[in-house]
């Protein structure tokens, strides 16, 4: 039997609910869960003040309601599954290392910052700083997968060192800024200044993009490894057409102000 949390009272100010996470709720009974501490602004309050708790968590949590103002869900998650039926607020899955979070709606900013493993799937759109480093840190996510079916904001995958970040729609400015390594795939269009300051890593987009002057065009070729990635995300339910699978890609190399070891691959229609 899985746990079901239904939001009965909409928070006036952001509700910080890092405690809503499979690892922290496994095995606890309804009363105990309802008594757990959440932060409503700067007030400490009980989870039950906002959520109806039903069932018991055996590695799976269903959450429903408008959670756009509920933050830190699934923080530090290591295993299990969380299914969020609606929209969700900032810092979803912060620091998670395993398990899966599925959001049927949209997600706020800062999806899965400092992630090291596991998977986050957002069926709608997501905000800025998806899969990124927190301010001041040199390194963002170290692994795991973030798959956004819709559009995402600025600084997608900023400073990431490993892992896979996918946007089914468009991405904002500074996609992959300062990335160390890893892979970002944007099936839609990217904003400006993609890959600024990147050291290594791959940014792949299915559309032409404005390249910074510190990126140079190396060649147009058919990278075999792209087939593996596209096949993989196709399995996750994203739309990849066969021409993209077998097609040619421009290879742009940069950022020359850094190591010049990164690449932006742009599908040539």
């Amino acid at each position: 039997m899985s746990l079901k949390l239904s939001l009965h009272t909409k928070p006036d100010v952001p509700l910080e609910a890092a405690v809503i996470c499979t690892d922290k709720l496994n095995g606890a009974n309804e009363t105990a869960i309802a008594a757990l501490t959440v932060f409503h602004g700067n007030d400490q309050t009980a989870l039950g003040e906002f959520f109806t708790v039903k069932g018991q968590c055996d590695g799976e949590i269903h959450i429903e309601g408008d959670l756009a103002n509920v933050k830190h869900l699934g923080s530090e998650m290591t295993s299990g599954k969380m299914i969020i039926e609606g929209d969700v607020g900032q810092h979803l899955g912060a620091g998670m290392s395993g398990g899966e979070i599925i959001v049927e709606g949209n997600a706020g900013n800062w999806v899965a910052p400092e992630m090291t493993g596991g998977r986050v799937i957002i069926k709608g759109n997501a905000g800025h700083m998806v899969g990124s480093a927190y301010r001041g840190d040199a390194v963002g996510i170290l692994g795991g997968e973030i798959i956004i079916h819709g559009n995402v904001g600025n600084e997608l995958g900023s400073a990431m060192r490993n892992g896979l970040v996918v946007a089914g729609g468009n991405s904002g400015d500074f996609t992959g800024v300062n990335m160390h390594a890893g892979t970002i795939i944007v099936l839609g269009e990217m904003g400006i200044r993609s890959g600024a300051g990147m050291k290594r890593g791959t940014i792949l987009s299915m559309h032409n993009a404005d390249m910074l002057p510190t990126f140079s065009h190396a060649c147009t070729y058919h990278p075999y490894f792209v087939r593996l990635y596209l096949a993989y995300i196709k399995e996750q339910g994203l739309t990849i057409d066969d021409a993209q699978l077998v097609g040619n890609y421009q290879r742009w190399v940069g950022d020359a102000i850094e190591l010049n070891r990164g690449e932006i691959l742009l599908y040539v229609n």
Partner: protein
Amino acid sequence: MITMKIKSTEIVDTFAEAFKMSGTRVIITAATKQWAMAAAQSMTGFATSVIGCKCEAGIERELNAEETPDMRPGVSVLLFAMDADGLGKRLVERIGQCVMTCPTTACFNGLESDTTAIVGGQLRYFGDGHQIGKVLGDQRLWRIPVMDGEFVVDEHFGIQDAVGGGNILILGKDQKTVLKAATAATKAMCEIDGVILPFPAGVVRSGSKVGSKYKSLIASSNDAYCPTLRTVTGKSLVPEDVNCVLEIVIDGLNEATVADAMRVGLHAAAKPGIKQLSAGNYGGNLGQYHLYLNKILEAS
């Protein structure tokens, strides 16, 4: 001793003595089936016997585009060596020299196992610092820049315990008849997944025994099956009216698949003019696996 027959062919009541080896599966893909095959043939060349070639290898089968990781036509190759260490070294040598060199190819691990050899992780140095590592799920890949683009190769290849040296012997009235039977047998055996026949077209005529009168040799001609020596050694196993013997050696990823291959081989080889079907062994003390022909046939 004969207790069993297929049609008119006698099945000698003996066993094939097979050895524990380490095996792996390599998937080579390329822009076309032909290029994948070219790399596979090159990679499985000079790999008939561990004694002389340090490994045994062969083509398992062709793969359709839908079956390969990068959705291109491919070939799967099995490679066997006496231990995991040696197998790793052979993989690096052979993928480096025969697959990386071949236009358009990519090379993937085809065997899930906890034991692995680092292959791409070695070959990457060919990239001279320009190689790129990628991680997708549990898979780690290396992209090595080459003159037609990139050579993509898995970091790890799975290695598992395997069975080498399964065999059947075909004893018949003349060379033509035995060759025909052997060809029929290899064709049938190649349909089995998980096995390869490491010798030329799957057939070996220079069967060997352990030891030699010459001290430096660890193996020598299997004189018991040489028709020319039928009356010379006093230990000949060549019946009268048998003038040619050929052997088919089978390496497989486990004992059951080797037995399967032997079974279909025996049935296909049992033709008019084939007096006996037998198997080679060393008395049973050297090999870990004893594949009795009677049991194999009864199991079907």
